[in-house]
């Protein structure tokens, strides 16, 4: 399949060069620079940088309550959001692959929220949660539950969960489609054999489907881990110009420290140190996930 590269070196370089220039100049270089900048106190792009060593990291880890507060949101997304998303995605996968009519239509509808811009999804959920005329307001009013219908879903004590539900709704679609694609590659004969042995639908799913799509599940969980640490667009969009601390994620906190909300903050070195911590957390979690999920691939 691969061709030998004798005398092909110029071609290889020529074909790789454009992508390499963009990628190294505008991705790898800033990523490496981030580690350097994180060691400085730097209060504005035209300002001089003052070397503070690991000072930013010490402050972040030992004294910065906001950092831990926003990290908590990411960890809630990772764990609670992860359990919810994968539970529903597995349920959807089981239902959609059970031989129903209209599978493509239902799959398309489950995935639909993923094709809508996060800002627009935030507009939609802003309506759903609106305490004056929102969907939930109307729903509880019809049921005669006046008190519930007046709930301010985006109030600080509920905002985190309200935001989580909306994001999980979107993610379920993505992970369903991913898992479902895995199941489509399993030969039907295996299920036939299982049925003849007397397995019920639940057993077929746990004994055949899950082991055979294990590599897809592993990819999905690693993607999930990276995604949970990256969360930014939806919570930032739904809360307006001054997002309450309850729905800050580490990414949002980084943005606020770097560029500010209403007024600029410009703690550039400090913000970059947050980014470095984000990367370190992603690497650790992804490595742990990969180790836990490692398993012999089953050939079929």
């Amino acid at each position, binding site marked *: 399949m691969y061709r030998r590269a004798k005398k092909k070196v110029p071609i290889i370089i020529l074909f790789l060069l454009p992508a390499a220039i963009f990628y190294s100049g505008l991705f790898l270089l800033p990523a490496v620079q981030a580690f350097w900048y994180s060691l400085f106190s730097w209060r504005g792009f035209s300002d001089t940088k003052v070397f503070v060593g690991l000072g930013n990291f010490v402050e972040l880890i030992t004294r910065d309550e906001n950092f831990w507060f926003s990290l908590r949101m990411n960890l809630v997304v990772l764990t609670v959001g992860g359990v919810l998303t994968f539970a529903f995605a597995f349920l959807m996968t089981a239902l959609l692959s059970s031989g129903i009519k209209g599978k493509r239509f*239902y799959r398309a509808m489950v995935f639909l929220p993923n094709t809508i811009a996060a800002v627009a999804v935030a507009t939609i959920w802003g309506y759903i949660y609106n305490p004056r005329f929102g969907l939930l307001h109307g729903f509880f009013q019809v049921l005669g539950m006046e008190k519930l219908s007046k709930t301010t879903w985006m109030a600080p004590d509920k905002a985190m969960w309200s935001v989580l539900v909306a994001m999980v709704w979107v993610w379920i679609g993505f992970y369903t489609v991913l898992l479902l694609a895995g199941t489509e590659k399993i030969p039907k004969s295996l299920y036939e054999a299982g049925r003849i042995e007397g397995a019920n639908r639940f057993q077929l799913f746990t004994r055949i489907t899950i082991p055979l799509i294990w590599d897809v599940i592993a990819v999905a969980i690693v993607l999930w881990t990276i995604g949970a640490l990256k969360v930014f667009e939806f919570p930032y969009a739904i809360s*307006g110009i001054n997002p309450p601390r309850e729905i800050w994620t580490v990414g949002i906190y980084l943005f606020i420290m770097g560029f500010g909300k209403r007024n600029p903050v410009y703690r550039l070195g400090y913000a970059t140190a947050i980014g470095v911590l984000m990367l370190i957390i992603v690497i650790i979690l992804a490595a742990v996930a990969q180790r836990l999920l490692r398993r012999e691939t089953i050939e079929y």
Partner: protein
Amino acid sequence: MERAIRTTRRGPLRWIRRIPTYVFLSLWAAFAIFCVLWIIFTSFKTNRELFANVWALPTRFVFENYVKAWQVVRMGDYFINSIIVVFASVALILAISTPASYVLSRFTFVGRKLVTNIFIAGMGVPTPLLFIPLFAIMSFLHLINTLPGLIVIYTSLSIPFTVYLLTGFFVTLPSELEESAVIDGASEFTIFSRVMMPLATPGIITAAIFNFITLWKEYMLALVYISEPDRRPLSLGLYSLSNSMQYTGDWVGLYAGAVIVIVPTIILYIVLSERMIEGITMGATKG
């Protein structure tokens, strides 16, 4: 006997047992459809009508919301910005990622695996890490607050996933045509452009659609690198519209703005949903 049991299981009984499945999936689908349709219908109402009865259909279709959103709130200008930025970015991403992916998946050379991994490793990097260093680079290049600046940022940040997707695709292509072209003495450029590109077209189209949707939806990077209102792409325009909503209270105007953002990707999705879903899953399920 065996046969008799099987037929009852496939008969009406089985259909009845599936009713809960259909009910659940239909409710889920109905909710998604409702969300989109409600926002479209409401965008044709007046604010007074919205508050009188949120459930009622508009009594007459008010296009003023759209006229206002398009001209006064300047969603029309932002729409054009988005078209320019997204099309140019997708073209650039494919122009540089396709040859790179081709070489990485069809040739063998020292460091091939390493280079591939370095490209793909970018998928794991949380984008906010790059906010500030990239800001410094972009202002050095005088590209802050410009559409070309946003285009090159979108391009470089889309390389990891695109290379991941395309190398996965190139590997699966048969090598017979390539080999016979080599024997016929075709040049490397001919092999690439006349033999491999046509074979890879489905993968390239999938990558194009995926990047188009992703970049059309994107507003985080635009928020960081575009502060000049004239240069906003559409989704950033909607973000600032929803912020100013806090003062204007013009809900139907906001919904009209949201519909302008939603409609292009929804239409693309209706036409190409199979292709898009394939794009999501192609990398993860390896082929």
